[in-house]
């Protein structure tokens, strides 16, 4: 088995394991034609960035309108792709948004009768999700050698 260089930017070892599930992410890298040519994975990750950004924007709009059911479905939507990329934390937050949006608690097990509680929790969870996304985005951009993002 070949040995990977340690912690160089561009190596999987440099990715923060709490943000990105390495094995899932490696699966995606495995879809590339070679380690040098990361067209597929890079393209996928970058389209995920724009998908997430637009989804967050939609979330903000729907939060303003208190359309929490729509928030739920947006949470579910982003959950699917963040899970696929192995962004574990973000995925968990999205799942919370999904559950909270159906007037239940974060786990989806219990009904939440108080709309204000739901909204308050949603606001916080969406904020968490955005931070987690930012964290993942920085790490991934660094991974793909996008240096300009580092000051961001």
């Amino acid at each position: 088995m070949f040995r990977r260089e340690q912690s160089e930017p561009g190596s999987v070892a440099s990715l923060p394991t709490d943000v990105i599930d390495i094995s899932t992410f490696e699966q995606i890298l495995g879809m590339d034609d070679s380690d040098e040519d990361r067209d597929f994975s890079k393209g996928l990750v970058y389209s995920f960035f724009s998908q997430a950004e637009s989804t967050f924007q939609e979330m903000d709009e729907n939060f303003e309108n208190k359309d929490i059911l729509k928030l739920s479905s947006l949470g579910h939507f982003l959950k699917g792709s963040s899970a696929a990329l192995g962004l574990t934390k973000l995925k968990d937050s999205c799942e919370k948004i999904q559950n909270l949006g159906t007037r239940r608690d974060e786990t989806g097990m219990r009904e939440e009768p108080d709309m204000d509680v739901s909204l308050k929790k949603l606001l916080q969870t969406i904020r968490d999700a955005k931070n987690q996304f930012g964290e993942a985005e920085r790490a991934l951009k660094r991974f793909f050698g996008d240096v300009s993002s580092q000051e961001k």
Partner: protein
Amino acid sequence: MTKELHRKIWVKRPGASPTLVQIRENDLMDGVREMILKKYANSLGRYFDAPDITLRIVARDDPSLEQTLGPDEEICRTLDTYYPGGQTVDEALIIDVPHRRTPRQSPRPTQIVYYDDQSRPFEHGGDYFPPMPPNVPSPAAITSTSHESRHSRDLSLSQTHSNHSHSHSLGHSSFDQTRSMTVLSTGQVPPLPSPGGTRRSHLTRPGRPANVRQPTASPTALANPHRSSRPHDSGDLAPAPAIISTPPTEHPPTAAQPTSRPTTPRVSSPRPKGRRRMRLRPDGTNSAATTPAPMSLSIPTIETSVPPINVLIVEDNHINLKLLEQFIRRLKVRWASAQNGREAVNKWRTGGFHLVLMDIQLPIMSGLEATKEIRRLERVNGIGVLANSTPTPGEEKSEGDKLVDRSLFKSPVIIVALTASNLQSDRHEALAAGCNDFLTKPVNFVWLERKVKEWGCMQALIDFDGWRKWKDFSQNDEGAEKKKEEK
């Protein structure tokens, strides 16, 4: 009880690898037998009682001199006498069991350790019967040095190494067939056993007319004659086809070493990275090194490449869709995609699909609704072997339900649900709607590839003519490529 009183001794089954068993310093042989049964919970514990087994000790300097230990012997003293300075691994006590009795399995064995369960991705570890063919050995179960698996493998008498992969691949289809036949005959997946029910028993539970359910019994039943008597061991623990051989396991998985193994709940599935290039090459060139010499039969073709199936990917999230498409593309399988349930049903109606990877929550029409609709159309159009004999009352075929080209629907399509949810109820629902199987996102590609192969093989068996054509075609293809190379 202090720690000093414990001691570990080496034992082994004849011809197998030794293992350590913990005993107490003053244990008699009798107590040791209990510990051995615990250790060999699968291969021995299920079929033998402690008094059944005997232990042999072999003298250190004269291997021909061996003695059977009596039940009242103090094991540690005996060991010290025989092996002054301590027992080495080569001096493991040899476990003998009486000649195999007909294993009679209780309907709910309580002390079974399903090693391979733990190593499976967690979506299959539900407490009800798994939708996936349970005789798929997890790659990790094979790499792991589980003594149980090794020993039970020894027990399966007929499986010499050379025919392992052969019967294994057939074994898959056998199971798939059974399950799918249920779907074929009823248009429904079988009812889910109550929670906690034994996972595999629906195939092998005594008295269940398993064969009646598969009138088109595949040759697989013959390929593995011991399955009936030793239901779990032979199929479950047979080595996987060589192509999925796992990377060496010298580096034990640790959380601190993310590069060695996945650290997710799916820890035990093999790390895709190490052999991704190899696995995703359906022509099998890279796997040649690990595959046993190719047999002249056509079976290995199935093993090394993906059968000629046509896959419909249904996903609304374009990230996931792109990923699945790329995955399928690399398997060199034909595919099409749909972004919602309605589109999926319409695409399916054009015919020719063998496998549907169906996201569950979809806009317009959910994956479950789409699945139900497809199953309904299959029933009213009589797709499936036994569908004609079991007309569902109250279901009339309206003109709009008629499929355009009935010949394109050889058998019910296999629907594998994809869900990001971990909820048991969602899986339940998926099966109830008529899905054959499900996977949790993020989809593990190793598993997905296997599912595609397994279900594809099953479909290929049903659509044998199509398979033949594909085989000829792919051979011609190969021939053409070779010619090119020669030039």
